[in-house]
């Protein structure tokens, strides 16, 4: 394992410290318990938005703290959901009286820790709503699994719900629009290589030189199945097909197409995937109205990508276009 780190035990703290130094104009880092808040307080009466989860998915979530998106983010240990003792103060910090929305990716650990924190924050007088993101079609959503995982759709939920909060929507409305984004987005990922969690020191799974892992999650957990390596167009089709089957858009639907890098894939490859995906969607009669390409929700240095398709309505599009000013996503200001 070769990594630009000092010690597996200090990776998250040092990294977030560096993030705070580099983006001192955007964020404040609270070291213990660890959470990140906006430097400029949001206007009073704005619904607060927070998210958090295991580290290793950067820029998620701290990179999205700022105007038009999150009020606070809670980075857990590497690939490990954060604990209530950090989520609670982040929730309190994000509250300016209008309540706080927790955006939680659907993993048992995240759900349980945010659940506890929400209960305790409510006990302290903060109204909390939770939006559970579960957009990963690689996982069967049934009574017999922990349900679909939250992956790429999380970034879209945070952006669009963040814009709704910024324009002054109330607590239930912000949660509702976040839920609407989640209901209309589906994602699926592929890994060409595994990643190595620093404290484990060995790759999270093994892939032969000609194998890829379809339906990968963002935690280096194995995916749906291994298949022999294919070309980019073939892989893109494999990711899109279950997305489209599940989302079942109709011709004429407007969509946002999001090709996300897992951390170790060059931008040039993501654009090759985007090219094919855009063609497949166009052939299906869909109108790609907005797009996002890059490393937005990663799994350390994993090679691979995920594709997310969000069915847009005019309100979502307007909220997507609304100004945002965070370390990792910025436009309009």
């Amino acid at each position, binding site marked *: 394992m070769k990594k630009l780190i000092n010690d597996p035990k200090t990776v998250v703290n040092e990294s977030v410290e560096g993030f705070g130094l580099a983006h001192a104009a955007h964020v404040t880092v609270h070291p213990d*318990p660890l959470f990140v808040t906006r430097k400029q307080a949001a206007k009073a009466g704005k619904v607060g938005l927070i998210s958090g989860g*295991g580290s290793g998915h950067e820029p998620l979530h701290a990179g999205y703290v700022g105007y038009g998106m999150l009020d606070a983010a809670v980075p*857990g*240990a*590497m*690939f*490990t*959901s*954060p*604990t*209530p*003792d*950090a989520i609670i103060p982040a929730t309190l910090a994000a509250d300016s009286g209008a309540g706080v929305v927790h955006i939680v990716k659907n*993993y*048992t*650990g995240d759900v*349980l*820790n945010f*659940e*506890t924190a929400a209960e305790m924050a409510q006990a302290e007088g903060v109204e909390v709503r939770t939006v559970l993101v579960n957009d990963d079609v*690689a*996982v*069967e959503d049934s009574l*017999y*699994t*922990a349900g679909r*995982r939250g992956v790429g759709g999380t970034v879209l939920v945070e952006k669009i719900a963040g814009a709704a909060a910024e324009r002054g929507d109330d607590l239930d409305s912000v949660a509702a629009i976040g839920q609407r984004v989640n209901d209309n987005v589906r994602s699926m990922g592929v890994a060409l290589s595994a990643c190595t*969690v620093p*404290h*484990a020191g*060995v790759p*999270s*799974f093994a892939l032969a030189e000609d194998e890829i892992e379809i339906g990968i*999650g963002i*935690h*280096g*957990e*194995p*995916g*749906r199945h291994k298949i022999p390596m294919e070309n980019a167009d073939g892989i893109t089709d494999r990711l899109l097909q279950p997305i489209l089957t599940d989302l079942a858009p109709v011709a004429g639907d407007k969509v946002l197409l999001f090709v996300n890098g897992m951390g170790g894939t060059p931008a040039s490859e993501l654009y090759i995937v985007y090219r094919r995906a855009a063609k497949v969607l166009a052939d299906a009669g869909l109108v790609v109205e907005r797009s996002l390409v890059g490393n937005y929700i990663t799994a350390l240095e994993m090679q691979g990508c995920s594709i997310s398709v969000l069915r847009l309505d005019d309100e979502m599009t307007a909220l997507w276009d609304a100004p945002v000013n965070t370390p990792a996503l910025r436009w309009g200001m």
Partner: protein
Amino acid sequence: MADSTFLTVDWAIDWLRRSAAVVAENRMALIELDRVIGDGDHGENLDRGFSAVLEALDAQAPATPGAAFKLAAMTLMSKVGGAAGPLYGTAFLRAATTVGDAAELDAAMLGAALGAARDGVVARGKAEVGDKTMIDAWTPAVDAAVAAAAAGAGPAAVLDAAATAAESGAVSTDPLIARKGRASYLGERAMGHRDPGAASSALILRAAANAAGAGA
């Protein structure tokens, strides 16, 4: 093995210290189990949590078994994270509530505390036996403990029965398909691998039994 009729706070503290030791010792093994069917952090998370429990014990000596459990609950809840943090945290919290501020625990109370701990895990995680989770260790452990206590066994024998049952329970997860937690994403690919949380539960319950044996 000598067996006293009651276990005191000394036993509770010894249990927590032994748990920390055994988790530290098995850190890589638990990481490895979790790497294969999860995300490779279970040993790291528990080790971080139990190291913090040791620090907390050094800082403030709990006066009763219940206080020791509560200290463990709060520390694990705030230091472990992931799925295991809230689950173990809830387990110790329910155990603490069950024993209240009793200075001494008898075999029946031990059985009740273990049962409450298990019920807490179920309340939070909704897992049933056979879902390939720590419940597959806890439920047989509780059953064995309650049966042993009913049969008149002392605390150490009760805990020994619980640990032994937990150990078989952990082994019993090997062939299963997971229906809860991260391993459930794997479908049939989880078959043939032991659930890390069941494995750590067996280690921790064995530590409880060892503490009772040693502290007798």
